């Protein structure tokens, strides 16, 4: 659980304001990679950096905001339902797939988190910021499943994309 919490934190850092649910008996997750897991559990909601690309329709923007609100409240089923509505409206919007990946990561479904982040990247040509965020999700998901080499490779992808800019 701790590992997962840490993992989550790094992805969330890159992906704006999603809070993790607060498990009753476990220390809640933290947000910054530099802090340790045992530290105080405040979850910093960051301002949504790099919001939806201009082409995201208002209908989808509304659903994304609502979904992230639900995820913040720990209602992941609801968040997924709203994101799927968004996906049906804009099937190729990589931001929607990125949010699906994030919610799955928060849920602890690491395999889905990775697949969905890859799916997001398959539509994210020309959006390096988003690609970096997806690679971070992938790295976290892989590390969570014990695939350290894969995680390092994903982090490398993220770094090289960041360096390119």
């Amino acid at each position, binding site marked *: 659980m701790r590992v997962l919490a840490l993992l989550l934190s790094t992805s969330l850092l890159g992906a704006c304001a999603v809070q993790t649910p607060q498990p009753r008996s476990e220390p809640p997750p933290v947000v910054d990679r530099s802090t340790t897991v045992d530290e105080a559990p405040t979850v910093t909601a960051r301002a949504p950096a790099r919001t939806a690309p201009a082409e995201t*329709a*208002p209908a989808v923007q509304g659903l994304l905001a609502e979904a992230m609100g639900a995820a913040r409240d720990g209602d992941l089923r609801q968040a997924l339902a709203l994101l799927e509505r968004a996906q*049906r409206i804009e099937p190729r919007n990589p931001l929607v797939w990125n949010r*699906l990946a994030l919610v799955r990561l928060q849920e602890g479904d690491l395999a889905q988190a990775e*697949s*969905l982040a890859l*799916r997001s990247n*398959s539509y994210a*040509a020309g959006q390096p910021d988003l690609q970096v965020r997806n690679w971070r999700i992938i790295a976290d998901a892989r590390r969570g499943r014990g695939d350290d080499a894969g995680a390092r490779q994903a982090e490398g992808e993220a770094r090289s994309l960041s360096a390119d800019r």
Partner: protein
Amino acid sequence: MARKPSSSRRPAAARKTRAKRKPGKRKTRGRGGRALRRLFAYGLLGLLVVGAGYVAYLDFEIRGQFEGRRWELPARVYARPLELYAGRQLTADDLQYELKLLGYRPVRRAQQGGTFARDGQTLELATRAFQFWDGPEQARRLRVGFSGGQVASLADAQSGRDVALARLDPVLVGSIYPAHNEDRILVRLEDVPETLTDALIAVEDRQFYDHHGIAPSAVARAVWANLRAGRTVQGGSTITQQLVKNFFLTSERTLRRKLNEAVMALLLEWHYDKNAILEAYLNEVYLGQDGRRSINGFGLASQFYFQRPLSQLRAHEVALLVGMIKGPSYYDPRRHPERARQRRDLVLSVMAEQGLVEAPAAAAAQRQALGVSTTPPSGATLYPNFVDLVRRQLRSEYRDEDLSSEGLQIFTTLDPLMQRQAEEAVERQLRAIEAGRTEQKGQLQSAVVAVRTGSGEVVALVGGRDGRYAGFNRALDAVRPIGSLVKPAVYLTALQRPQHYTLATLLDDGPLAVRNHDGSLWEPGNYDHRFHGRVPLALALAHSYNVSTARLGMELGVEQVVKTLEGLGMDRSVKPYPSVLLGSVNLSPLEVAQLYQTVAAGGFRTPLRSIRAVLDAEGQALSSYPLTVQRAFDETTIHLLTRALQLAVSDGTGAGLYAMVSPSLRVAGKTGTTDDTRDSWFAGFTEDYLAVAWIGRDDNRPTGLSGSTGALRVWGALAAAVQPTPLDAPPPGGIESVWVDPATGLRSEEGCEGAVRWPFLPGSAPAAGAECRGGSWLQRLLR
């Protein structure tokens, strides 16, 4: 009128019954004396024991009925809700069709929920509130403007402000009934309009709140009336007795039955309070028949006769339903409107008499038309084949009796607009095909599966040319050889080895003989009975050449191809015989759709889904079926395959398609034909939708149709009607586009004769240049 809870809980029933059975008034005669008296005493005791036992038995029966059956509710199956937002592809006619399915009434001004007004390309509608699995959708008034096949504007009809997103209530596409075919929509007493309960009590049982289950004075009155008339003209049954009668569904009019009913009514009153009994009655009472389905309860009757929820009924409609209790078929407002009207007006008079409505209001209500919808909403599902798919998916998680009795709400992925187009495409194309062939008339069958490519949601499913009738569901159960539809798996296996195979790699389409395991020789031939020499890989697939495909498959290894099929989502075990390479793999149209879905989704495998969520009767989520994806193939490799499949439609065996739809759709597709034209297949996709069409005969005789003369036409008709999004998204990163000469497979230049631009994985494009026939554009420019 106030609803009084029952105040009496005395075991009156038992005592009264015993009293009835006691032959106490008889005198003992003669001097038989003591022995006789003793015999009598024992007899009496015996009778008492038997009587008590009998009452206990009736008590057990009636409580079982009351506790158990009153909650038995069929599952409701809903279509996807229609989402409205600016920019959505939808015509005004589409929306109107959806509204018709929903039972929205056309009006001049849409104010009441469930109404709409259309003015050319603008629709105003008043939606109904609905509780979805992901939250409530409020009722609202919307103005929707259409232009160019799209929703051009969506605004609040009152404020005029833009609305980003709205969703209609979902079309009820079917119900899963218990074995006895009773249907009902459960209502709670507090949701039932008081006019209704008051009218009901006034007409059926004025002493309802005062009696203990039976009303002797009412019985006496009825007996007197019947005696005078010499036949049964009046019933003295209380609401409680009627409820008991409804529970056991029999019209038997014997004294014993009457007695049992009376006893059970007393027992019911002893155990339950008046409101519980009234609520059960409101949900149980028989109010009509629709084929094999019986219409039970006011909730369903309201929908069945008025296509509106009970809470929205007006006085004259309430009066009609209450009046019908006396004889639902005799007073059937659709078959006998005049009788029904007289009965309704009588009820309205009683209501006025009792002060339930003001006299002028009652008179006004009597002037109203019956207001019954001309055709009843069908209880039989319009889409039995789709509901079949839903049932099968649910059967792994729910028991049959739960599906048919727990009142589950099942939200599915069915798109009724798409379904209608798919059914029409099948019907029209089969008719057109048969028109030229008398020997096939009525013999051809077809199936279609349509899927949203991104999410794997099945949006339409046609299981035969009579899609409205349940029966052999060919989309799921016609498991047939898939012929050339298997070929993309062979080529995908090759393209996964970019160092050996590209779209431009020349394949050998010369004669081939392969020795089978049993020593026999397999010598595949081409459909046109010719060999084509050296053919670039992309065109060998596009033209569906058998020999080069078989040779390629043998080079790659049949096991590898089977592995690719499994990667695409095939869920059957297939022996790796060489004949697999040319499609001796038996799959249903739905299974084929699963394979092509993985290609259409860029190599990400998503299990096909027909259900989004299942809620219980109270609206609590029982299960959801979230979108899941798994990367099965690299999206760049899939991009190459997709390009070859686009060539199959633009230049290959699917070329007939562009006579039906615009080439700008850039469809990727594949035809399939099996031995002696027994099966005709077409699988194809655009950006947003994938569809698989099949034509064949149930007796498996030859149809004389190839994939391109048969199934392709069904597919084309569907695509022409639906107008999907073109497949022209930019290629994924890591793809380079290079001009090549297909004749040689070598690099070429723009402007050279026959040069084409094909995608390659980095470093795999041919290096050496071909001689430029016709000269490059630069050369020509300089000439």
